[in-house]
């Protein structure tokens, strides 16, 4: 099956959810005009990133009426976007939502919230705990958010649940300007190359652009495929809507050429992990 995916490399306004919703509708409109079947936005695309105390003021439950105009458009296209979620547990989360045909298919809460150096996420938001796979018209999907992508264990969990396509929604700030590309971009591309190769999945990486308090998000969105192709490169530092048509048949081809999935044994993983957890009292 072939699927046309739109990568919305946008620059949201910090804390202005109405204007950001308008921008979502504008990009969704363009994606529909171009016959895309799915559109993917970056992490926290509805709210902006460096919210600090303001996170609480823009948090919304996933089923809030605020999202109705976006929900309405999902009759024509599947939509994944990021927002600050007000949980029913009265905590707030850095979440991503996938909607299809006017219903919420999945809400994913970012698990690894970086809190060091320039990052302060855990100070202002709660931590998610569950990596899930959900069925769409186009196969099994999972969402991961930014720093999650630097934890191979989470990618492995999507692989173990037979995910075909991982949506990697990000707000990665640029750093490292000695090489041809920003160092962070090299790191992300290497990681995605490795995951797509060994887990024979597609990864749709959508990173935002724009500046917040001096942090400059680099963009560089693209789709990595199991056969090692890179599609729909959006370039850096500019808002852009790019399109990738992926062929899910690639997964079958790859898994026959390089049958790692057939060798995989989750019992071995679990037994070893249980032993390690016991030996370390559950701590890393």
């Amino acid at each position, binding site marked *: 099956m072939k699927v046309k995916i739109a990568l919305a490399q946008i620059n949201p306004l910090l804390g202005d959810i109405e204007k950001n919703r308008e921008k979502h509708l504008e990009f969704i409109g363009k994606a529909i005009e171009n016959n895309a079947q799915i559109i993917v936005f970056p992490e926290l695309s509805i709210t902006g990133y460096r*919210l600090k105390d303001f996170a609480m003021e823009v948090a919304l439950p996933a089923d809030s009426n605020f999202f109705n105009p976006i929900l309405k458009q999902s009759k024509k296209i599947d939509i994944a976007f990021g927002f600050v979620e007000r949980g029913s547990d009265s905590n707030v989360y850095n979440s991503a939502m996938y909607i299809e045909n006017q219903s919420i298919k999945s809400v994913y809460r970012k698990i690894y919230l970086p809190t060091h150096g320039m990052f302060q996420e855990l100070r202002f938001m709660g931590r998610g705990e569950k990596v899930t796979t959900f069925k769409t018209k186009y196969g099994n999907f999972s969402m991961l958010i930014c720093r999650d992508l630097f934890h191979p264990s989470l990618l492995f969990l999507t692989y173990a649940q037979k995910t075909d396509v991982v949506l990697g929604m990000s707000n990665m700030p640029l750093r490292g*300007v000695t090489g*041809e590309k920003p160092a962070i971009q090299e790191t992300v591309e290497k990681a995605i190359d490795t995951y797509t190769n060994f887990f024979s999945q597609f990864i749709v990486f959508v990173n935002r652009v724009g500046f*917040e*308090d001096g942090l400059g998000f680099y963009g560089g969105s693209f789709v990595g495929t199991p056969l090692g192709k890179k599609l729909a490169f959006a370039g850096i530092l500019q808002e852009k809507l790019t399109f990738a048509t992926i062929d899910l048949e690639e997964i079958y081809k790859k898994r026959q050429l390089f049958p790692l999935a057939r060798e995989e044994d989750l019992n071995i993983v679990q037994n070893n992990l249980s032993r390690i957890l016991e030996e370390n009292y559950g701590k890393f």
Partner: protein
Amino acid sequence: MENFRLNYELVKKFIIEFIKEEVHSNGFNRCVVGLSGGLDSVLVAYLSKEALGKENVKAIIMPYKTSNPASKEDALATATHLGILYETIDITKIADAYFKKEKEMTNIRMGNFLARTRMSILFDKSREFKALVMGTSNKSELILGYSTWYGDMAASLYPIGDLYKTQIFEFAQFMQIPEKIIAKKPSADLWPGQTDEKELGAKYIQIDSILTLYVDQRKTKDEIIAMGYSQKIVESLLNRIKKNQFKRTLPPVAKFSPRTFGLDFLYPHDLGK
């Protein structure tokens, strides 16, 4: 010595996007730059012109009677070469009116007063021109606090604030700034004969090497000295970093309410932008 080389094409692109976005998202199209004719302010003028267009950049040239005449010439030549707007305001009368009444003016007091007089004019001109004030501080200065608090440090944004002076020299070459300006001895020019390297006690390549080892690579003082750097210089620079931390923060508030500015009332700078 450390290697400071960067991909200057990427740095240029990044800083230009930064200036564009910061200026536009704050509701402005224009900027003013205090142009002394020194390398940092010339570099900021070049970058601002590329980001905003020559008609949206105004250089304010503010010499004092003791300022090096060559600096003013370089400032004028830069403004003319770039085709940006400019205005010259001699601050001698303003400053001397105050100095005359003060008995014991030291170099430091005079230097600070001149820097703050320039700041005052620059912010007034930014209002007149409906513009933001570009900062010209570099990373070496910001780390050392080698600048006047609420003087030359006062600005709306710091486009070159993450570049060491050593990188500014290289970046300036990439930006094709005239060699004559790059080759000048760096100086705040607040009194005759003042130079950065004389005041700081070392060449910039040494200063920046020590700074990057300490700040970016998290080496300890002893590790840096063990690498062969002079103990006296290392200690003097590290002392400056600590002593001048106050310049890099907003003043402390005596906290007693539930949410206090700077402590636990933490809105971002760029809210709504």
